[in-house]
């Protein structure tokens, strides 16, 4: 890490060795507590709740479930309830009250195969509209669930009859700036990125980035869609400017090749939507800043509006592990505090300093 005076530094605050494989880690909103979700050696799922105490993590609670858990989100729950929605290896979507985790508050066998990715919107006092959860699975479908409606999804994006399915690796909500509007972005293993509009229940845009898509995220879920970052295999990521959609060319984008290995996750800083962190298969974290171009849209030869992509600059990078860092989460309450989980069975709490000066 370069020690330039004004560059943000990534300080490793706490490291905790775990006795299981951690697939996802999330901050509990409005607290200094974090959750680790994963799979124990005997094939069961584990949820561990830790609290930050000085320079160490204290285990508050451990919950074991029959199936390994792949992903979780607090996105669709209210600040008072703080229920955790999880997707597991068997395709079950469950919502848990962590105070009483024996029986899920909501449970559905949503998919035939593992749920690779989950996202929630409409909760935590952010944005408006119904609370909804989207899950993407290896069975090729993306389903949107409303916790108030049992058993059936409110939207189902599935392959055409007879079409061979592709793994859906990642999903994200966006454009949820009022009660009606909402989009879901899904990334697949064959490089497809598809944008589904839930208001019109149609496919709004699709593209293929030539490498399997590992992670997609909008810079903010609850605003008119502004930017979308999609990371992929082979160390590449693309930043799409989502404000201007051209009828044939779609959205403008800029892409970077950060490293040789897969970029597993991208997460935007909740306090600044132009800063995001990518985590890599080589155990490294890169902190990026997006700069907008002078003009975000221009007219093409036929007078149609098309977007202009900006540029991305690397603020800092650090290598923490020899194994891939598969999950990353910024704390929504403390700027610069983040947690990451790696396949070396370690969860690390990091602090990124000097983000105010950017």
């Amino acid at each position: 890490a370069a020690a330039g005076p004004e560059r943000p530094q990534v300080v490793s605050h706490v490291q905790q060795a775990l006795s299981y494989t951690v697939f996802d880690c999330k901050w509990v909103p409005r607290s200094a507590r974090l959750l680790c979700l994963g799979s124990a050696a005997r094939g069961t799922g584990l949820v561990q709740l830790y609290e930050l105490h000085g320079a160490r993590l204290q285990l508050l609670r451990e919950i074991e479930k029959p199936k390994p858990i792949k992903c979780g989100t607090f996105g669709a729950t209210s600040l008072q309830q703080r229920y955790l929605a999880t997707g597991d290896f068997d395709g079950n979507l469950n919502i848990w009250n962590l105070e009483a985790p024996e029986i899920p508050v909501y449970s559905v066998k949503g998919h035939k195969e593992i749920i690779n990715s989950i996202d929630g919107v409409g909760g935590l006092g952010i944005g408006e509209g119904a609370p909804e959860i989207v899950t993407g699975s290896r069975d090729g479908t993306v389903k949107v669930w409303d916790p108030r409606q049992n058993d059936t999804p409110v939207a189902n994006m599935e392959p055409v009859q007879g079409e061979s399915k592709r793994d859906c690796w990642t999903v994200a909500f966006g454009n949820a700036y009022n009660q009606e509007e909402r989009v879901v972005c899904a990334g697949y293993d064959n490089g497809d990125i598809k944008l589904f509009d839930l208001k019109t229940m149609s496919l709004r845009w699709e593209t293929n980035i030539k490498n399997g898509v590992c992670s997609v995220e909008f810079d903010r879920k609850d605003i008119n869609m502004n930017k979308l970052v999609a990371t992929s295999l082979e160390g590449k990521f693309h930043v799409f400017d989502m404000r201007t959609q051209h009828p044939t060319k779609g959205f403008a984008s800029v892409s970077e090749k950060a490293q040789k290995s897969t970029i597993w996750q991208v997460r935007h800083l909740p306090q600044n939507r132009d800063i995001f962190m990518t985590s890599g298969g080589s155990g490294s974290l890169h902190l990026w800043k997006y700069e907008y171009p002078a003009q975000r849209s221009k007219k093409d030869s036929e007078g149609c509006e098309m977007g202009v992509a900006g540029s991305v600059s690397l603020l800092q990078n650090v290598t923490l592990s020899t194994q891939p860092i598969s999950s990353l989460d910024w704390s929504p309450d403390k700027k610069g505090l983040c947690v990451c989980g790696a396949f070396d069975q370690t969860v690390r709490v990091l602090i990124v300093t000097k983000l105010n000066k950017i």
Partner: protein
Amino acid sequence: MPLWLREHSWRQTLTAVYLSLPLRGARATPANIFCGEQYLKVSIPPFLFEAILYAPIDDTNSTAKIGNGNIYFTLYKKEPAMWDSLTLANADKEKLQYLREMAVLKAQEKAKEETEAKKFTKQENKKYALEATMKVEEAERKRIEELKEKEWQKVTKELELWKNQQKDGDKYKSIQKKGELREEIEPLKERKKEKTNKTRIPKEGTSKTRLKSTKGDGSCSIFSPTLKEEQLPVPRAAATIKVNFTPRVFPTALRESHIAEEEEWLHKQAEARRIINSDLSELKDLKEEEKNPDWLKDKGNKMFAVGNYLGAVHAYNLAVKLNNKLPLLYLNRAACHLKLRNLHKAIEDSSKALELLTPPVPDNESARVKAHVRRGTAFCQLELYTEGLQDYEAALKIDPKNKNIEKDAEKIRHLIQGTIQSS
């Protein structure tokens, strides 16, 4: 024969001898002067001056100055004594030779010693330099470490502060909650009784916490939960969006670096499936694309889908002529024959397909199931129910979960029992 320089003049003190040697126009350099302990030689070809000194001198400290066409020697005596003469008087040739050699040897030794000493000092200097750089780098590293430590401490302190704020915030909320709960226990009990009959678990959960979240308005608590629930829009009307994927043959994820390899593999596969048994006379009428069994199979499938069973059969026939090792061709042709009621041909084709679908692996499961079902159907339509049942049971063995096959197998069993009874 060298020219001897003999015109030298000298004077002496107790400790030193001063010798002045005029050079007859010759130019002298330090290389020309050779001085040993008791031997002095100046050789500037063709001139030569040689002297065996009376007594040993200290050759390291003695000096020679070259200038003004002379060399001035300042020789420091080893033993302070007055010399009778500059050189040894009665020096015979042998002694001279011996002394010369000794002098040369000594000089060589001295030279060696000097180089050794130089090397040693050089090494010492290097070591010192290395140590100095190491110290400097250590200091730099320490400085950076300290900076990092400071950052870490600063950040930890901030974190603790923030955490404590959170804790206080939570405590305050929980105290509030307790106060509210006591006020609202009565209305809560009543509402609970109402709600338990109607609601499912999620709603109960939400109503409980909604009550918790109201801050202090005890009187409005009965009304505020319902208001809050109405603020959320109803769940969306369920709908499905059909998705098409960018086609990809391989089940693995797409990687740019592997695209070339994959293309090559596919190309080779396609080549292998092309004409492997061809009769040139028949084929020269065909167009390029018609020579591809895969293309013909697709054509056949399309014709089957629209109901043109004869056309489909023709397509499959041609494809088989090109490549008789593709089980799917026979399988599909069997389906066409079934529709055309060419039952024997259907049986033949299904059998051929099953032959080609060995070894039985999970990959060709669905194909084998279809083959068995089609053959079974053909048998039944020929009223050979036992053979038909055999095929249906084979299909069921491969795919036990298929309800249709089970139903049909049941029907056939009933039929068999019926015929046995009646006959």
